[in-house]
């Protein structure tokens, strides 16, 4: 305990408890550095002691990933929470990793701007968590992902060095694109302390419609047709036999998009209703973070979403469990929330080969620790795995950062 208190002050160190457990593994200490230099000192101390270290923001997404192989120190970066530099005219923002998304949103809203990423549990998500877990929501359909909006990072590496990648401008090809490497890496390549994002103007108008189609196949077809409409959807999700579509932009565009969508759906015999666009998108965003025994995430081609949903439905019936699904059709992501723990390994064993046969994947995004230990949460990362091992070994040779959490036991 002593070295930590020397670095961050005794007030910011405490022994780990049950509430700090990550997938059931209780850390020995929770350390709360207040500056980047303190983060660096903590990393050096951990490296010197051979201690495994995991960075945490508000802890809302620590249920993503495989259980840690070892965990000694939980490095809580919540004190690094400043919005360092919002350049409204440049439409960029540089922010510390521990900054919660709502606090960042408040600053950006002052200039009519936003970071158009809408992960589950957004109110309890930090910038660091957003990047580390590569989180997204319905807005991905039109706004892209973290990788598309992240311009630069500062990361504390395994030797305690502060490493910068990317920059603070919207276009930049100097050096390797290190920021991309850290997106979705679950903190296994270093401790993210700062990120710079491209931000966008908030669209002035929004509307959303929900179309009840009667069956899942018809809904999947409607969703693909909606994607191809003249006004491309702002977001587009498929829940059971219902398609929800959001439009945003200037008033004329939104009105035209909604009218065309209504006509398209009604021609196909669907019942269409207007819904509150913010609430509807928020519900869709939160679905993968809602309580469930496990949330599976399949990645397939957009045109295979209907088939993936049928597979999931059949597998759930065979396993005798209730499954709730939500699909982001434009990017081919299908979530399945499973009600009971026991059938999860069977579902994964059944569904993963089917998704992989389509060139896709099936990841156990969130699950109780007991469920995770009974299976491989990640599945096959593909032929790039040896290179991934190489990257991990190059940047974290001592397996200091979150060992065991990532693909292939990295």
């Amino acid at each position, binding site marked *: 305990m002593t070295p930590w208190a020397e670095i961050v002050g005794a007030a910011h160190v405490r022994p780990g408890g049950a509430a700090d457990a990550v997938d059931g593994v209780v850390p020995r200490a929770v350390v709360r550095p207040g500056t980047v230099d303190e983060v660096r000192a903590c990393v050096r101390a951990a490296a010197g002691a051979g201690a495994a270290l995991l960075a945490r923001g508000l802890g809302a997404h620590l249920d993503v990933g495989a259980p840690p192989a070892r965990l000694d120190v939980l490095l809580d970066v919540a004190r690094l929470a400043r919005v360092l530099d919002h350049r409204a*005219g*440049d*439409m960029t923002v540089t922010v510390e990793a521990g900054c919660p998304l709502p606090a960042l949103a408040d600053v950006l809203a002052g200039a009519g701007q936003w970071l158009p990423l809408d992960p589950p549990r957004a109110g309890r998500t930090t910038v660091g968590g957003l990047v580390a877990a590569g989180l997204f929501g319905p807005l991905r359909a039109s706004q*892209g992902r973290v*990788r*598309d909006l992240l311009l630069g990072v500062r990361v504390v*590496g395994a030797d305690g*060095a502060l*490493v*910068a*990648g990317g*920059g*603070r*401008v*919207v*276009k*930049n*090809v*100097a*050096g*390797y*694109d*290190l920021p991309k*490497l850290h997106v979705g890496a679950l903190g296994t390549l270093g401790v993210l302390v700062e990120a710079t994002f491209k931000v966008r*103007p*908030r669209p*002035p108008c929004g509307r959303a419609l929900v179309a009840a189609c009667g069956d899942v196949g018809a809904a999947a077809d409607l969703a693909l047709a909606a994607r191809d409409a*003249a*006004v491309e959807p702002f977001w587009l999700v498929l829940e059971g036999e219902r398609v929800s579509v959001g439009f945003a*932009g*200037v008033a*004329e*565009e939104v*009105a*035209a*998009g909604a009218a065309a969508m209504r006509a398209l759906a009604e021609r196909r015999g669907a019942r269409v209703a207007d819904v509150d666009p913010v609430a509807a998108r928020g519900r869709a965003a939160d679905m993968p973070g809602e309580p469930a025994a496990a949330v599976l995430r399949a*990645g397939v*081609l*957009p*045109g295979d979403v209907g088939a993936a949903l049928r597979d999931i439905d059949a597998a759930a019936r065979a396993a005798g469990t209730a499954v709730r699904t939500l699909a982001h059709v434009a*990017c*081919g*992501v299908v979530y399945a929330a499973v009600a009971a723990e026991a059938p999860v390994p069977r579902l994964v064993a059944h569904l993963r080969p089917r998704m992989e046969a389509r*060139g896709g*994947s099936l*990841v156990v995004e969130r699950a109780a620790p007991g469920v995770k230990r009974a299976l491989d949460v*990640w599945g096959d*990362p*593909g*032929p*790039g*795995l040896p*290179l*991934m091992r*190489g*990257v991990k070994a*190059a*940047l974290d040779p001592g397996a200091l950062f979150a060992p065991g959490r*990532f*693909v292939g036991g990295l």
Partner: protein
Amino acid sequence: MLSGALVTALRAVVGDDGVIDGAAALLVYECDGYTLERAAPELVVLPRAPAEVGAVLRLLAAGGIPFVPRGAGTGLSGGTLPVGAPVMVCTSRMQRIEAIDATNRRVTVEAGVVNQWVTNAVRAHGLHYAPDPSSQPACTIGGNVAENSGGPHTLKYGVTTNHVLGVELALPTGDLVQLGGAVEDRPGYDLVGLAVGAEGTFGIVTRATLRLVRTPEGTRTLLAVFDSVEAASEAVSGIIADGIVPAALEMMDRLMIGAVEVAYRVGLPVDAGAVLLIELDGPAAGLEPQVARVERVCRAHGVREIRVARDEAERAALWKCRKRAFGAVGRLAPNYCTQDGVVPRTRVPEILRRIAAAGERHRLRIGNVFHAGDGNIHPILLFDARDPDEVRRVLAAGREILEACVELGGSLTGEHGIGVEKIAEMPLLFGPDDLRAMTAIRAVFDPAGRANPHKIFPDAKVCVETRAPRRQAAL
């Protein structure tokens, strides 16, 4: 000197017409679009398929021989200069568009497919490939992936990395490894994102799976004429601040307007200080209100005249001016050097002042035609290569402009890459720890440093014969 046995083995892989070793024929390969440094390879090898790239690299690996990849040779930072690499591997014969999947908006192509061909092949489906570098009628997808190329329309649609879903990479060992693919969200590190923009230092990209975007329902292209670059710059900031995201927002200054008008005769106002080429696209319903807003902002910043292209022919004429502006410069001076730097977009007026000051200080004429909406500047330095002192002043002014970009919070390059051109400037942007992390990653892909050696990283710099540059090919 390469052994005769190796050359024979390479011929067996790629055919007799796939090996170039005659001194005259090799001259073509001694530089790309960056002509200030030149070095000819001993041998150029042109595989016909990805598997042949693998076979070629296996032969080179057995001999421990470094190599440099090349597509169409339109790069502007000397990325294909063979420095300490006797063999050049050209992907230009690998031209198959392998699969078009309109439903899922994907296309898989070999590395030598020309950028423009992709859009030509999918246009009938109402789709296009968004990154559109000025060299798009010639540059290859493999080169675009290596450089993470941009273009005017990247303001709204993003650069190459936002549109590459998967690559097949021939490692320096000759092994072909598929990274990413048509389906998004494969678990693991984003090695595709890492490989895009690696400038050939990981190996040779042999195939790419690209994302296609829907061709917008409507497009409006405007030419806004201003008395000064300051007023035009302020209008750019005003448009961005108004919450409008144009598809493209390009600026040309007086020197470039004059050159383009002489070359293409489209009726540009040669007495203007600057023109903005502004393109808005999207659903037809939303277009006119946005055009009106852009016009309002331009008027608020003292625009002299706004012309709206009335049809596709007028639009094409405006874009021809922009995309072929570099070619027009050939009439102004025997040689020119295009710089590529980035500043935060609000600092565009300041960097233009700094560029003008550098021009005065070094007695050089400098024109500007650039991606104003992104803050991605392209000063064009005119010179005569027969005047060694002027060449020296061009290099000095270029360096000062890049220093100013970094000082203003920007970057050394927005889309051309570091190559050999900007190796010396890398420490302006990255510290030793940053560079160490990058070289450690490079070693994962290429432990022996045989893939495009002596590029990007300062400690890798070796002396290249710097000759007087010749008249530059128009890109």
